[in-house]
């Protein structure tokens, strides 16, 4: 299906990070799509939470995931706007986090307003980050780096233990599971903007 198969220097297959972006605003969809592709991500951009859940494999009643014989594209991250008609970004976040099949997917919420109550609500519901719009290239880069770091951890551990066995120096400092979230201290980005 063309997931952009690539290979790293060790000859291991490297899959592109697949981000599902959700925004009801046409211009914003175009911008986020370009942002993601510029950052070497595979981008699927949809205009509603409902559509997003469909793509993630939620059935019509939004109750559970039906496994369409593994034909759903694997989504590595969801970036959703908060204010959307129908299903809000918060509601989408909630559905994802309440689904046993989807809850591990990091969900980033974006908003043009940094309302503290809104941010708290999202973070309490398990959002990865809350970003002020417009989203920047540096935001996407950071999100991608965080993701890759998290994904690489199990592999790093096995490489590290193999390296230790060979008594070779392993430069990577692999952190324990508790530090997998690097954003708990400052979940809101664009720090110089005042929060209402």
């Amino acid at each position: 299906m063309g997931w952009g198969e690539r290979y790293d220097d060790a000859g291991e297959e490297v899959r592109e990070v697949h981000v599902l972006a959700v925004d009801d605003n046409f211009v914003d969809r175009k911008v986020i799509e370009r942002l993601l592709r510029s950052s070497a991500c595979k981008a699927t951009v949809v205009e509603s939470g409902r559509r997003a859940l469909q793509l993630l494999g939620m059935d019509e009643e939004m109750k559970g995931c039906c496994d369409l014989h593994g034909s759903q594209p694997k989504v590595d991250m969801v970036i959703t706007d908060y204010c959307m008609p129908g299903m809000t970004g918060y509601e989408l976040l909630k559905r994802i986090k309440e689904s046993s099949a989807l809850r591990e997917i990091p969900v980033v919420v974006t908003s043009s307003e940094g309302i503290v109550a809104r941010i708290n609500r999202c973070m309490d519901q398990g959002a990865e980050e809350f970003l002020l719009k417009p989203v920047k290239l540096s935001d996407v880069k950071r999100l991608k780096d965080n993701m890759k770091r998290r994904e690489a951890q199990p592999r790093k551990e096995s490489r590290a233990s193999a390296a230790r066995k060979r008594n070779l120096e392993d430069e990577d400092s692999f952190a324990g599971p508790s530090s997998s979230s690097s954003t708990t201290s400052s979940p809101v980005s664009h720090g110089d903007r005042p929060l209402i």
Partner: protein
Amino acid sequence: MEKKQQLHRQVVMMRQSLFDQGYVDDQFVQLEELQDDTNPNFVEEIVTLYYRDSARLISSIEQALERSPLDFDKLDNLMHQFRGSSSSIGARKVKAECTQFGEHCVGGNGEGCMRSFQRMKREYSALRKKLEAYFQVARQAGPMDTASRSN
């Protein structure tokens, strides 16, 4: 060769003036950074999409402003969407007028809304002319290395 250099200089000046005169903000730079060999005209494309897409929003706001009594929630909602798009292309003055409009909605100030809306439309048109002129010269000048474009 001389003509090319003149055009390049003109592009640089026109671009600088967009920032100096407050028409666009840092988001415009962000969009420029998304341009590359495969998407060399991204900024112009997104601006074109913006003007096309926002026309219907503006029309809806216009219609809503003709209602009596004014539905401030609806107006605020429509303007919020338009503000979002304007923000995404870095339209600084347009965005500022949208914010003003929003404040008048919250305050239930119909007169204020009308005034803001008129100002917004003026900024929206002025920006369009500036950007169209800029893109035209930029296209004529052809590709430039980023060093000569830097702020």
